[in-house]
């Protein structure tokens, strides 16, 4: 692929984000597959695996986009701290709040 | 003993400031003053109806035990800290000494000072933990009452049940004063018809919010007969300050008497009396919202109030046994004259039941209050009763409107209401 060739060539010049166009496309394909798998739960009965499968896929997709597309994986510790603090707090706070409504019982 | 060790703290704090500029001698005098004043204060036994330090029932006692643990503890810590500060302020004032060594701290001291409070707090934590679960216990309940808050009064309904061997065959509805038997574990199932209120009889238990759409549980128990004051303690709008309640504890025998009375329907007054005319006024006006059980319309059918069509909350106090209660309008106003009220409130536990069950006898009826109320209720207790301003609530009142009754109607109504014992 044309674009990819130039890309790998120039990769060293650009920031050390370590994400070439080709990799990006591959990741997007993987993400697409996962979404397809998610959608398939609507058509196929997964039984007891329904919730865990969806949850795992969701988390994996989320982290993939954050780590690669948003290249947080390659960023400074401080950036990770800023974002994951927000994310972690949100998870903690809202999980607890939902629990007090007996959401999970 | 002192009711409030934090008070001692603030005394102490003033003392410290004196110590800061004056000598140690003065400071010591201050300390002594603080201590003696605390003793003096505790000597004055107060008679506050909503005192949180005078438990009269099991759960309130449990809370009180915890209070007696944590307040003195806080007080002691306070005294220690303030003494240390006072000492430092005096000892290290600028006496012309050299610039001190630039010490950046001492990890041993710091870790110690972190661990000590942590230990103290974990002890408190254990007791708190136990207390919380004890107070939440409901599985040995002996009686259930539904408590419903609305702007700005409380309704109590007693579902059909057998309490201490006495059967409540028909549900009882009353308001303002909650009547319970002594020595019985009573479960209040609290909810609300409009906004959040909070039910709080300090002598019997801590407060618990009445949240619309939810049922919150509060267990109370009274050791001895008596009357206990309370006050809605979650801000609930305009007349929050006027939303009060009282709990009345009667001995089981007296309670049976009370139940028997409450199960009666109201009887129409004798023909051609003032009270009879009052009944007609009632049927013309008050029945729109206020139910009187057993009241019949002119055509002989049962008169059923329709508060849901007139009041936003969809309820108004049931007046069948109005005169068996001592207060009205959200327990904000007395039906009793001051003297009679005092008799009830200061009655000894043994004779309390007899005094209370007399209800509001003619001599004791507080004519001023009830007439003022009938003349113009919103003027006495702020309520949303101006029809012009009720767009948001579909024209329904929140509270009682000014009915524009004539003085003679008021006379008649008072006569009729006095018959509702």
């Amino acid at each position: 692929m044309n674009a990819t060739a130039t890309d790998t060539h120039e990769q060293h010049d650009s920031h050390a984000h370590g994400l070439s166009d080709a990799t990006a496309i591959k990741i997007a394909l993987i993400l697409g597959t996962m979404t397809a798998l998610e959608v398939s739960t609507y058509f196929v009965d997964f039984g007891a695996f329904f919730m865990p499968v969806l949850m795992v896929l969701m988390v994996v997709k989320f982290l993939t986009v954050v780590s690669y597309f948003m290249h947080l994986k390659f960023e400074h510790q401080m950036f990770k701290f800023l974002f994951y603090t927000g994310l972690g707090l949100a998870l903690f706070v809202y999980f607890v709040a939902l629990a007090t409504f007996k959401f999970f019982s | 003993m002192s009711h409030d060790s934090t008070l001692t703290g603030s005394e102490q704090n003033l003392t410290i400031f004196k110590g800061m500029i004056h000598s140690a001698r003065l400071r010591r005098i201050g300390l002594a003053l603080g201590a003696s004043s605390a003793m003096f204060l505790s000597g004055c036994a107060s008679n506050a109806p909503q005192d949180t330090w005078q438990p009269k029932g099991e759960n309130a006692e449990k809370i009180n035990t915890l209070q007696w643990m944590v307040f003195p503890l806080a007080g002691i810590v306070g005294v220690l800290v303030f003494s240390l500060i006072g000492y430092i302020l005096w000892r290290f004032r600028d006496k012309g000494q050299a610039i001190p060594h630039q010490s950046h701290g001492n990890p041993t001291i710091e870790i110690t000072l972190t661990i000590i409070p942590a230990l103290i707090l974990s002890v408190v934590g254990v007791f708190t933990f136990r207390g919380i679960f004890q107070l939440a216990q409901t599985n040995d309940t002996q009686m259930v009452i539904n408590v419903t808050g609305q702007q700005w009064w409380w309704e109590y309904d007693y579902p059909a049940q057998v309490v201490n061997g006495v059967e409540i065959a028909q549900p009882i509805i009353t308001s303002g004063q909650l009547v319970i038997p002594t020595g019985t574990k009573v479960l209040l199932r609290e909810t609300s018809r409009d906004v959040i209120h909070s039910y709080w009889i300090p002598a019997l238990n801590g407060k618990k919010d009445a949240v619309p759409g939810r049922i919150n549980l509060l267990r109370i128990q009274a050791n001895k007969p008596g009357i206990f004051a309370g006050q809605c303690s979650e801000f609930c709008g305009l007349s929050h300050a006027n939303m009060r309640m009282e709990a009345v504890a009667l001995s089981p025998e007296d309670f049976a008497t009370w139940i028997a009375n409450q199960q009666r329907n109201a009887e129409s007054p004798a023909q051609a009396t003032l009270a009879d005319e009052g009944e007609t006024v009632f049927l013309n006006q008050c029945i729109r919202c206020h139910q009187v059980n057993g009241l019949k319309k002119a055509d002989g059918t049962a008169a059923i109030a329709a508060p849901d069509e007139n009041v936003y909350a969809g309820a108004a106090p049931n007046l069948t046994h109005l005169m068996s209660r001592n207060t009205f309008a959200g327990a904000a106003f007395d039906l009793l004259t001051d003297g009679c009220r005092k008799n009830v409130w200061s009655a000894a536990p043994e004779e309390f039941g007899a005094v209370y069950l007399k209800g509001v006898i003619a001599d004791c009826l507080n004519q001023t209050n009830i007439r003022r109320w009938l003349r113009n209720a919103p003027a006495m207790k702020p309520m949303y009763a101006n029809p012009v301003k009720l767009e948001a609530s579909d024209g329904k009142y929140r509270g009682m409107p000014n009915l524009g009754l004539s003085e003679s109607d008021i006379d008649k109504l008072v006569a009729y209401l006095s018959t509702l014992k």
Partner: protein
Amino acid sequence: MAMWLFLGSECLLFGGLISTYMLYRGRVTQGPRPSQVFDIPFTSVSSFVLLMSSLTMVLAVTSAQRKDNHRTKLWLMVTASLGATFVGGQVYEFTAFYNEGLGFTTNLFSSSFYTLTGFHGVHVTVGVIMLLSLRGIISKDKDTGDRPEVVELIGLYWHFVDIVWIIIFTLVYLIPA
């Protein structure tokens, strides 16, 4: 850095909206329930579209880093088009739901659903406007200057919108089905 902080903060915003929805989706006294109106095949395509727009955004960012103005503009346009189609999909979805009797004020589910997805839709729209404007700025202003950073920042925002949708799609659409 500021963008990451902002996104961290946005996590709590969407967290709150999602929690509200999760709490209320089952409390329906009148009108349709979630599983009665959702059109999963359609929403799946929406999700794919948004996911692919994330990819094209990545391509725009890498192009910008290569100072390849032509491809940057191209990928920005593609991302914006996909984003605008997604918004169109949402407009369609809302209209269809409304026709099926699910107004904003119908029940708790509808209020919290429209608020959550509407907030997300507004974020997407703002993103598209930023992408298009950025493209316009690049056309007008030949000097690239600090453009790669700007493209990257908008990219971060765009991916964030995408990950929010990843969560919404699973929690809101797939689970009640």
